[in-house]
């Protein structure tokens, strides 16, 4: 696989080193002279000096081939947005992965069609929320390798899901309902299953996405 990485800070450097260790072809672009020199010492010709938002710098790095993936990993979100847009729209790169430094900027990445994005802050926050016990939500099983977990929630009265069919809920891709337990009897959750307050619902989801589930199934926060 051929990967171009824009930004050789901590994230860019470690991704470069890891990909090279896995036998991939990598070019990393860094515009800070000092940082570039230490990258060049470690990665030799795989390090390039320049601004990764300049078209000729990207072209010198080989973006015209094009690479399989471009990783926009600078410390500036506006730079990462432009690197990703150039990669996808100007050079037809199939996949651009962008680092989001300030989680408030994630809306801009969504707006401009840049996905997936990676935000260290958001991930840490998701894990913190994951550790905070929520009494309405019981963690039953963690599938660490699969990065999934199974939880149980009781549908609150007046919750958005109360009285709705599952297919009406427009669940995100990171979340599925497994079964419904009502008056001691369990049934498999299907699109036409109607949910009611008091139902015990088993759900499978990505760790950290509990909030999406709670918003739908628990009573409104107000």
């Amino acid at each position, binding site marked *: 696989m051929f990967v171009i990485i824009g930004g050789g800070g901590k994230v860019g450097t470690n991704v470069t080193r890891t990909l090279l260790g896995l036998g991939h072809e990598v070019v990393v672009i860094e515009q800070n002279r000092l940082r570039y020199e230490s990258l060049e010492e470690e990665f030799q010709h795989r390090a390039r000096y320049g601004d990764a938002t300049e*078209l000729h710098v990207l072209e010198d790095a080989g973006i015209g081939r094009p690479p399989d993936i471009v990783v926009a990993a600078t410390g500036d979100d506006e730079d990462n947005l432009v690197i990703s847009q150039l990669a996808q729209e100007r050079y037809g790169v199939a996949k651009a992965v962008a680092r989001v430094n300030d989680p408030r900027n994630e809306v801009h990445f969504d707006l401009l069609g840049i996905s997936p994005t990676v935000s260290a802050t958001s991930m840490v926050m998701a894990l913190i929320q994951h550790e905070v016990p929520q009494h309405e939500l019981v963690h039953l099983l963690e599938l660490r390798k699969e990065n999934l977990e199974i939880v149980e929630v009781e549908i609150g009265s007046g919750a958005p899901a109360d009285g709705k069919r599952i297919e009406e809920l427009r669940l995100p891709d990171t979340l599925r309902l497994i079964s419904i337990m009502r008056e001691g009897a369990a049934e498999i959750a299907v699109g036409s299953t109607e949910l009611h307050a008091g139902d015990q619902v088993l759900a499978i989801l990505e760790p950290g996405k509990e909030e999406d589930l709670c918003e739908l199934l628990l009573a409104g926060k107000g």
Partner: protein
Amino acid sequence: MKAIVVGCGRVGSALAKVLHASGWEVAAVDESEEALRRLGERWPGEFHLGHGMDTAMLEAAGIQDADAVVVATDGDNTNIVVAQVAKLRYEVPSVAARIHDPARAKFYANRGFDIVSPTSAAIDQLTEWVSGIEVRA
């Protein structure tokens, strides 16, 4: 008739004053308090301290009902992103961005916002000047 000027350096602050003098209601935005100095002590318009990518600040400046947004910070990429946000997210009718790099200016042309490229303008003007050079006899 409301305009927002994001980035109040020499260009942005001058333009904010021109807009105000032509009867526009102007909200100026800059990351630095120093921009206020360039706008003048008696700047009668709004001033918002913050980064152009900050949607909360843009909304406080009234971007939802602005007729025009001019983005002229010293960062090409900031200008490129804020102009797209103004156009696509807030559907501002008239949006202009300053982009120094001619290559990026060209790539982002025809996306519903206007681009002013001082570098290209300088190249064009100097190219015209070159054609008029008279050599020594």
